[in-house]
């Protein structure tokens, strides 16, 4: 497999870029297709079988639906049947890859069958491409989209290598035309794209992989630690995950931008969010919008739900009945979001955790407003906004305690250990320099986070950092670029002694 964090990848994208601009504009999509197939083929032949099967199933489904609609009397039920069949096929493949092994074990255990060895295969990016083809098929069914006739062009939409590993989960109408129409060489886009990639590598290699050393040490050896160390580790795990995931996005989006293809943004500085709901509008945006468009909205407008709410009005009161309209879809969305992230119980609990927070904040929104009013809190003041941001970040840090240790039982133990000792002195003695990172590494991590924070503030103000940098004189501009590149080369965590060459979200 070609990891984004490898020299091989840099060589690979250099060749792809060169070939892309060498080919005639009309045929440039073929370069992307070839490169993407090559990129995916490096993960193994079994993964490709899954991918091709999903591609064929969704391609045929979309074509069939379109054929049905093209008839004089379109049979919508038949189209729906095709859609269900198509979605089921792709979901079966997804479930087979995700829980096949454990389900098989459970079945053999229940029926006391002779254990059969089951080879677990988790194709790279299966969750991402499955969701993108489900969106495509549904959009064709909803007539928002026209089915693609050229299988290879459709296949490129699915397999386009920058987004196949970790997303963003694309929408056909936004991505496919960009992929297929060739783009002229654009110096500005090329530079901007490469700059974004550098920023992505900085986030991933300098920050995320550095903090990963600390978090893995604490969560893998949690019995050796107690008290506030876990809070520090959870905070680091939050930063790690953000930098890991958003860093990968920057690399994917940066490469695409360099050939004038714009992928959907997946992050918008989530730690500046003032509520849990806003946080999830800023974090993994494409997954959120996918759930909104294909789970939440269909449920909200579902007549059965409306009927249920009407019925409950009489028994539960009008306010609660009205709330049911959002509670039920939100619950479904968050349980599914949890399951998307992982099949373990901790992910289900994690989904419920966020679901409950968002439901409470939605349902009791009027009460919260009354409380702030009664306490005469100025909700427009900077201090209150900061409080909201810190509150949201803390909620996220707590949620990392559910997923980072990898097991709900360990999470329970860790929570117990947090309250076993109030060791505030760890911030003043040398303790923090002995948990996976030494003093120098720790401070490089802190300084890097500070840089990230400053850049985020500038972005939050609506200033485009790359535009700002490009307005600087050449010496200053280049100095910034060199500093970025050298920071990655010197302070990056890589090489044979390190294990930080994979992405956390790559396993989903």
């Amino acid at each position, binding site marked *: 497999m070609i990891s984004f964090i490898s*020299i091989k990848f840099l060589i690979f994208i250099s060749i792809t870029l060169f070939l892309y601009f060498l080919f005639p504009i009309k045929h440039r999509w073929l370069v992307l297709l070839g490169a993407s197939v090559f990129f995916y083929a490096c993960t193994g032949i079994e993964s490709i079988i899954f991918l091709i099967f999903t591609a064929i199933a969704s391609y045929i489904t979309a074509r069939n639906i379109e054929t049905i609609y093209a008839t004089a009397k379109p049979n919508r039920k038949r189209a729906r049947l095709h859609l269900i069949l198509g979605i089921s096929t792709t979901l079966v493949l997804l479930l087979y890859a995700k829980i096949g092994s454990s389900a098989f074990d459970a079945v053999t255990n229940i029926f006391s069958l002779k254990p059969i060895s089951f080879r677990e295969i988790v194709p790279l990016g299966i969750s991402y491409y499955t969701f993108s083809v489900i969106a495509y098929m549904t959009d064709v069914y909803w007539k928002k989209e026209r089915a693609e006739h050229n299988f290879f062009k459709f296949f490129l939409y699915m397999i386009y290598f920058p987004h196949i590993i970790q997303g963003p989960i694309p929408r056909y109408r936004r991505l496919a035309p960009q992929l297929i129409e060739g783009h002229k060489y654009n*110096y500005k886009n090329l530079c901007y794209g490469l700059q974004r990639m550098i920023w992505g590598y900085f986030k991933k290699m300098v920050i995320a992989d550095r903090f990963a050393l600390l978090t893995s040490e604490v969560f893998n050896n949690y019995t050796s630690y107690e008290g506030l160390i876990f809070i520090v580790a959870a905070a680091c795990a939050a930063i790690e995950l953000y930098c890991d995931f958003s860093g990968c996005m920057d690399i994917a989006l940066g490469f695409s931008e360099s050939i004038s293809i714009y992928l959907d943004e997946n992050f918008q500085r989530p730690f500046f969010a003032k509520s849990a709901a806003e946080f999830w509008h800023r974090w993994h945006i494409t997954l959120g919008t996918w759930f909104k468009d294909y789970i939440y909205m269909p449920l909200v407008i579902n007549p059965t739900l409306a009927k249920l709410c009407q019925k409950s009005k009489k028994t539960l009161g009008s306010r609660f009945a009205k709330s049911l309209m959002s509670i039920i879809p939100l619950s479904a969305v968050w349980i599914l979001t949890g399951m998307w992230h992982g099949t373990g119980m901790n992910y289900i609990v994690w989904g419920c955790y966020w679901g409950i927070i968002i439901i409470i904040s939605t349902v009791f929104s009027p009460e919260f407003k009354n409380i702030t009013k009664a306490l005469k809190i100025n909700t427009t003041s900077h201090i209150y906004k900061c409080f909201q941001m810190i509150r949201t970040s803390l909620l996220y840090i707590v949620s990392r305690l559910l997923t980072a240790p990898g097991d709900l039982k360990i999470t329970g133990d860790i929570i117990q250990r947090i309250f076993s000792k109030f060791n505030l002195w760890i911030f003043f003695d040398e303790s923090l320099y002995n948990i996976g990172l*030494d003093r*120098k*590494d720790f401070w490089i991590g802190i300084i890097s986070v500070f840089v990230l924070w400053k850049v985020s503030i500038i972005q939050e103000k609506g200033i485009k950092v790359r535009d700002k940098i490009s307005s600087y004189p050449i010496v200053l501009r*280049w100095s910034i*670029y*060199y500093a970025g*590149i*050298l920071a990655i*080369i*010197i*302070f*990056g965590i*890589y*090489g*044979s*002694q390190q294990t930080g060459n994979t992405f956390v979200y790559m396993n989903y």
Partner: protein
Amino acid sequence: MTYFQKLLKYKPAKYMVYIIYFIYFIYRRYMKITIKSVAFLLILFMLILGVQKVLYFPTNTGLSEFTGIDDIHKYKNSYDVCFLGPSTSISNVCNQELYEKYGIAGVSAAVSQQPIYLTRYTLEEVLKYQSPQVVFLDTRSLFYYEQAERTMALENEPLVHSSLDVINTLSIRKEALEKVQLYNKDIDPFDYFSKLYYSHDNWKNLTKKNFNSNVENVYMNGNVSFLDIVDNVSNTYESSQNRNVLKIRLKIEKDFSEMVKMCEDAGTELILTMNYVNAVKSHHLAAKTLAKKYNVKYLNINEFIYKTGFQHNLDLRDPIHFNLSGAIKWTHFLGEYLQKNYNFTDKRKDKTYQRYEKNRKILQEQKEFIYTKQQLLSVSSFYKYLREINELNLNENIILISVNDDAMKNLTKVEANLLQTLGLNIDLTNKNGCSYAAVISSDGIQEDYSYLKTVTLDGKINETSYEVISNGLQSGGNSSISINDTETIQTGKGFNFTIYNTKFDKITNSCFFDTTTTINPVQSRYKTTTTTNIQQITEPNIWENIE
């Protein structure tokens, strides 16, 4: 038809014109961008090179970072003999002495613990750049267990690096890396093709040396001079009872046979050398059998070393490595042997070998140090010891003295006089039961005494910090001498000494003399830098090693 039109009829010329036009078009269209991009990349490249130069410094990469193989690339076809193998090939011979005494240009291209499958590639690299008459191959790596080779590849990654980094020929390095990957699949190949990639993490260990472009190479012609002496080492070769022939593993024999073939093709004589004195007889017999099988000369150091005046308790740095004194002795033997059996032109008369001349002084100083160390170690009487330390050059040595108990009780007048000539201002003859401490250096003497209290002297001389604590009979308790926060001697009753050489940053000698009794022998020597916990080589169970 013009000449140009005629030329265009010629196909290659036509294509050439197209290419030139294309380049011109690109140049005109993207000139500014091209120049900018090239300038950007060029500066980046230079910055990266600069960073690499600073970070890739062998501050903590172990013994073999600077091997002689660098010189092999630098001075093509200039060496008469070459020593290959593991660390014993680095320490047990002195190429500088070989040049100075016999005019033979030798180089050691060895790496610590190097397994033979990597030595094979070192030889290939050596023969690409040099045409030595003789290559000495150390037998030690013939007996590495497979597990040891695996462990080295898995855990001793810096040493694998040392072996591969010095191979400049990429194809050879690639092949060598593939061999290593058989033992450790997780190796990142880029680590072995980019120095910066490998050493980028060294930013944490930066010292002034990293920024100094003229770093003194401690490896002279691939040798490192060990200046320590280990005692308490028994001679396992002499006491070895096992007469069975140890079977050499097939993989190792294959590599060896390839090396024999390479040398044959290059017209170089390969000599298999058992190059360590604490071997066992079964090793010797196996190596001898192998040499016989491949019609290769075999030289067992153990059979000849004592003819050179080698002393087991003075010429070893540890059970298998010679110190400089031992290396010089063995080099003399080799020099005689080489002169007798081969025709070498005297390189001392050749101006192209000036690089050896600049090392003369260094070797001389190292010799003086090790011989002084041996001399002090051999002295048994207090009187003689005082005479010896009176001869020391105080510009290079610090003498630290601490007394314990009633040290002055039986001090003779002659001994007291010798102490005075060392520079002591306090008359010790009438200070029975006193605490007394002194530090003597080129800066003068610092001393103090007390009848009832502990005397402590501490401070810094240049970069060396010291602490001397003395407790006489009245004050009671222990005495101690510490250099750079490390206690150098576990003190005993009487006079305690530490001689510290500031030039080499090494302890020349540490000992104490019990002057509380009338007889003053050397009672003990503790905490010299090398004497603790040296493991003896044990005879292997040969049946376990047969493949």
